[in-house]
């Protein structure tokens, strides 16, 4: 079996900034990321959507580079850039020809040093974010389903349960003082990791990191938000109106085992057995055999992330678009059959072996994968950052597969019996409003 061994070098600067370099000179391209250990789950109470709005503000002007300068300087170097907000991290990243590395690091250091934004910038980006919410959620069939629908039904702790994109009233209430306070609290070097991947030597990467980031003063690390959930004792259900789409939909989320435990490894194999494409039991049963559904998909921490990129409670989620002639309960009964079969009969050695091969293959693709094809090694960067921030061990990239490949059929069956039970799950139904569905 071919194993992937990715060279990784790490250091920590005096101000607490962690630095990870993964050299690979195959192409004259370098990918840079800065990850901050703050995401929409961790944003302060009563400030829904702030972490994401703030991410937009990080493109509006920093210590020396004014509005548009980050974008202009990266694009004109032949590169691309973006940022994104996740449950527990927010990232800023660039892919550029490697002769622009120093410029990219200067820019990222400039906005770690200070944010220089005004009322006009905030008003402008608040408008942009509202259009983002409209185009992705409010004006799309199945917008936000189930990533915005499930949390309020599944969770009781505000941090896990609130509207991550933000209520418009909360977005409107955000002030420049809030922006600067948030920056001061969460964007300290000690709460971040810098990643440099591709056409760079480790010593060169470390020297440049020191040159540009070393003298950024660090504040105290933020007080971690309490994201713990009270134990669930009965099944939760919710219904959301579907304004555009013609088919009814159903999402089921089971609380997943804690990250990096034997149960978590087993749940990953269970997940692949259930949701692994068309060979997965859910698609096969609901779409191919019983034909109650038109499409199914799912995963651990699906659809806003993957099995590695969270640090707290999450769920194994199944998303089902089903035919209107079947009720939600009928559809759910077919889904429950597929789950019940795994609980009662377990998984064969042969099926588990297939699942492991596919899991390994998917992992390699994930590491190499760009984001929509334009960001080489985005996946590797993302894993390194999460392993650095959550586990303090980016080398896990080279060893994390082992735990999954050791899972036994008995463990998979036991995990199915322990976790895939009604009192551990939440169900959300998307019910189309009359016009399209009635026919």
């Amino acid at each position: 079996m071919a194993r992937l061994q990715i060279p990784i070098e790490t250091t920590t600067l005096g101000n607490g900034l962690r630095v990870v370099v993964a050299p690979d000179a195959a192409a004259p391209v370098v990918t840079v990321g800065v990850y901050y250990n703050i995401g929409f789950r961790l944003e302060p109470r009563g400030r829904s959507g702030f972490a994401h709005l703030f991410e937009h503000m990080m493109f509006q002007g920093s210590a020396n580079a004014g509005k548009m300068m980050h974008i202009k300087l990266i694009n004109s170097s032949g590169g691309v850039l973006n940022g994104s907000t996740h449950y527990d991290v927010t990232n800023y990243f660039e892919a550029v020809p490697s002769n622009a590395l120093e410029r990219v690091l200067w820019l990222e250091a400039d906005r770690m040093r200070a944010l220089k934004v005004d009322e006009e910038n905030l008003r402008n980006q608040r408008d942009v974010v509202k259009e983002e919410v409209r185009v992705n959620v409010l004006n799309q069939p199945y917008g936000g389903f189930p990533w915005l629908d499930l949390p309020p039904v599944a969770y009781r702790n505000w941090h896990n349960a609130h509207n991550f994109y933000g209520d418009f009233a909360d977005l409107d209430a955000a002030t420049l003082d809030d922006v600067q306070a948030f920056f001061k609290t969460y964007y300290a070097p000690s709460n971040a990791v810098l990643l440099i991947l591709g056409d760079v030597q480790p010593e060169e990467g470390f020297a440049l990191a020191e040159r540009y980031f070393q003298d950024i003063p660090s504040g105290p690390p933020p007080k971690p938000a309490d994201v713990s959930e009270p134990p669930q004792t009965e099944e939760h259900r919710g219904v959301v109106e579907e304004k555009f789409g013609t088919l009814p939909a159903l999402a089921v989320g089971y609380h997943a085992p804690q990250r990096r435990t034997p149960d978590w490894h087993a749940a990953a194999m269970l997940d692949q057995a259930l949701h692994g494409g068309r060979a997965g039991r859910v698609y096969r049963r609901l779409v191919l055999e019983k034909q109650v559904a038109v499409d199914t998909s799912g995963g651990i921490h699906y659809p806003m992330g993957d099995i590695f990129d969270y640090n707290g409670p999450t769920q194994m989620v199944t998303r089902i678009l089903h035919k209107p002639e079947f009720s939600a309960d009928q559809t759910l009964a077919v889904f429950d059959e597929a789950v019940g079969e795994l609980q009662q009969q377990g998984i064969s050695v042969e099926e588990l072996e297939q699942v492991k091969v596919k899991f390994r293959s998917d992992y390699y693709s994930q590491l190499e994968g760009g984001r929509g094809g334009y960001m080489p090694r985005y996946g590797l960067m993302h894993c390194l950052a999460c392993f650095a921030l959550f586990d303090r061990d980016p080398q896990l990239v080279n060893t994390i597969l082992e735990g999954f490949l050791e899972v036994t059929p008995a463990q998979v069956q036991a995990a199915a019996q322990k976790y895939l039970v009604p009192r551990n799950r939440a169900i959300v139904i998307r019910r189309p409003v009359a016009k399209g569905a009635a026919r």
Partner: protein
Amino acid sequence: MSSVLTSDLRAHVPALGPERPVVWPRRTRRTLVNGLQVVLVESHTIPKLTAELYFRSGNAVTARQAPGLAEMTAAVVRTGTVSRSSRQIEEDLRRMGADLGTSAGADTSAISFSGLAEFSKGLLELVVELARNASFPPDEFERERRQRVEELRIERTTPGFLAGERLRKVLFGQHPYALVAPTEAQVESYRREQLVEFYGEHYRPGNALLVAVGDFTAENMVEQIERAFGNWPAGKPAEPENPPLPETRGRHVYLVHLADTVQTQILVGNRAITRRHPDWLRLSLANSLYGGAFNSRLVMNIREQKGYTYSPRSTVHALRQHGYFSIHAAVRNAVAAATLAEIFYELDRMRALPVGEEELTDARNYLSGVFSLGLGTQDGLAAQLATVYLNELPEDYLETYREKIRALTADDVLAAARKYFDSANARIVLVGDRKELAEQAALFGELEVFDAQGNRLQGGEAG
């Protein structure tokens, strides 16, 4: 808006280092005796291979007899062969750590696959079976057909889809490129024999291109491919003739009515050119300056200054026989007309004034830089190779692209904008609620209103 760096900032920003050479990997090319074209590149980034088997026939060749038939054929191809059931195919793929997709666009049908390199032999054998010996099980066909109908119903509630569908209709008229998707009735009327016939005629080695990138040695992979595909009997379909394109004079506005929408999907377009056209790179650069990149004029104007929209962009679309240029933005309803005014203002500015030296240099650097970002991944390489060989671009296209972009001038950009940013004759599509939009839309040209199914509605009728 000036984008010139202040001297103060220039002093801070590190200069670009010396450029490291971009070396495109060596391609191994073969044409098998049956006509199958093969392009291989070694890439050892991960222990996998990534490949696409293209047939140069898509929905355009079936548009007159059965729109969308190529797509339906592709969907059913993966559901059974003479020796494997649907379930067996899916489990065999999983056993090899493989993903496989079948699809069809206007010009091609494709089987895309990737998997662990250690299983490449078995994967190629499965793919050749799908390409040669698909069995089109009747029950799988019925299931896929029903799924397609349900998908179409959802697509016709999706603003971006509806805008694209209408724009293609008005740009291409009677030409097959006008049809983006079939109607539900057309899907209902497909017969299994039609799929089998399309498959028999078009899934032929003489019509095919296989691009493979991955962790293999080229020599060994050539052998594996010859063994798997070599005894597939030759064959190549005839090229169909297509009707002429419609006249597109004057500005016209097409409003697709979708009740209670909280946003307006704007899509503006003109016909343009194919990738083989000598103006392609000039137009690409003009597009990049106008709206093709984050720091382009349109994005800075309607996003960063005015906050009308989240992700506006312009795009040059190349099809095999023709192409088109389009601009899209999803905006709040109240600023639909204001956004259109800015879209046209920026188009006309590109047409009227030569672009300044700094802005031009920035855009040239952008295009030539991003062109090679995909070099380090199997996916990125496979996509670039497919573009070159499907479009029959010159063999040195990848190697010479950057120098050609860097040689372009402000005059080239101005000429391309004047020729292709045809603002006076643009087609304007708006998808949204007519109550909110009819008045704003009528400001920009003669207005026609449609429902989501494509039926014409009376202009003055209340939504």
